[in-house]
């Protein structure tokens, strides 16, 4: 391979005022300013967003899929964390 690899960035876009930024994909770019430009060209050609974040891909720490059960399974047994666990007589009305 003769080419120097272009750094990789993850792109997050805020679709509308009041919404959170959401991951939409990645771009290759030499620096943050060019990554923003590329993200604009690649991911917002049809009014998809009002704001863009680009983050170096290597800066993201992700949970390991192999540890999915250990990480998330314990919440499945804790049904008392949900409002429907608790009984309220109908006479009380909406709560």
């Amino acid at each position, binding site marked *: 391979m003769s*080419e120097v690899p272009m750094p990789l960035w993850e792109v997050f876009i805020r679709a509308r005022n009041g919404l959170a930024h959401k991951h939409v*994909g990645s771009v290759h770019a*030499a620096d943050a300013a060019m990554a923003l430009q590329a993200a604009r060209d*690649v991911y917002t050609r049809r009014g998809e967003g009002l704001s863009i974040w680009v983050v170096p891909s290597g800066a993201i720490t992700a949970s390991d899929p192999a540890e999915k059960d250990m990480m998330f399974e314990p919440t499945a047994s804790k049904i008392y964390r949900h409002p429907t666990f608790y009984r309220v007589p109908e006479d009380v009305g909406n709560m």
Partner: protein
Amino acid sequence: MYTQGLLHGKDEDRGGPEPAEKLARFQERIDAEEKIEPNDWMPEAYRRTLIRMISQHAHSEIVGMLPEGNWITRAPSLRRKAALLAKVQDEGGHGLYLYAAAETLGVSREELVEQLLAGKAKYSSIFNYPTLSWADIGAIGWLVDGAAIMNQIPLCRCSYGPYARAMIRICKEESFHQRQGFEIMLTLCRGTPEQKAMAQDALDRWWWPSLMMFGPSDTQSQHSDKSLRWKIKRFSNDELRQKFVDATVPQGHFLGLAFPDPQLRFDHATSHWHFGAIDWDEFRNVLAGNGPCNRQRMTQRRAAHERGAWVREAAIAYGEKRRLREAAE
């Protein structure tokens, strides 16, 4: 995130025998319609099949910019020119989404581009045909993008998450491409006799190559079975080809055009359009590099890549300089 397949752990879990229980568990997940994500365990053949499919798809988007780019400067009006520019820009974008999806499987875009330029990778045979008249731009949008959509809609449900997500975006955008192509055809067909003849000529040349886009017949296809079992593909080549013919023939008749197939007829028993035999020798010949434009396409791609090298180098050097400066401050 998506890309960690590229950053580390590239060779983790690779090579060596694949335990039967892991394979069975993997197939269970597929059967349960679970999406497979980049860092999940997957059989090596699944990874290879996806890299091959996604990268061929990405290359096709990029090479596909050439036949249409040919007409940007000669589009008949500003409206047509703006639409064609937007379409070609979309194809570039589609190439980027797809290369990014392939990278999640642990292969870099640079490697994939190098495979294309070295002539080691395939791209869709259709882009090796020339765009001789403006009507070809209409026929490409209507037929080639129409066939592509037919292929791509089921890929939105592909078992591999990043590919499926890229396809959802792409399908939304392709639909504009097909409609702009059909509108060009309709305008020509409602124009002068010469204009209508241009539209007919374009249909005559693009019809059969469009049918070939779905790939070899099911009896010949090397990859179909496994891809269906792994839910990479949802329909076989022949099923998709038939769907395309059924959808497209009435549209052609609406235009008042004749299809270049004397055997084309509606079969009331099956409710499908029956079509004649495809010339698979032509298909194989074009894939083998002997189509009308194979050499020109690759020469143009290589030239563009080489001419852009100094820009990529300068951008990286400048980015590096700024990083060092910031670190020093």
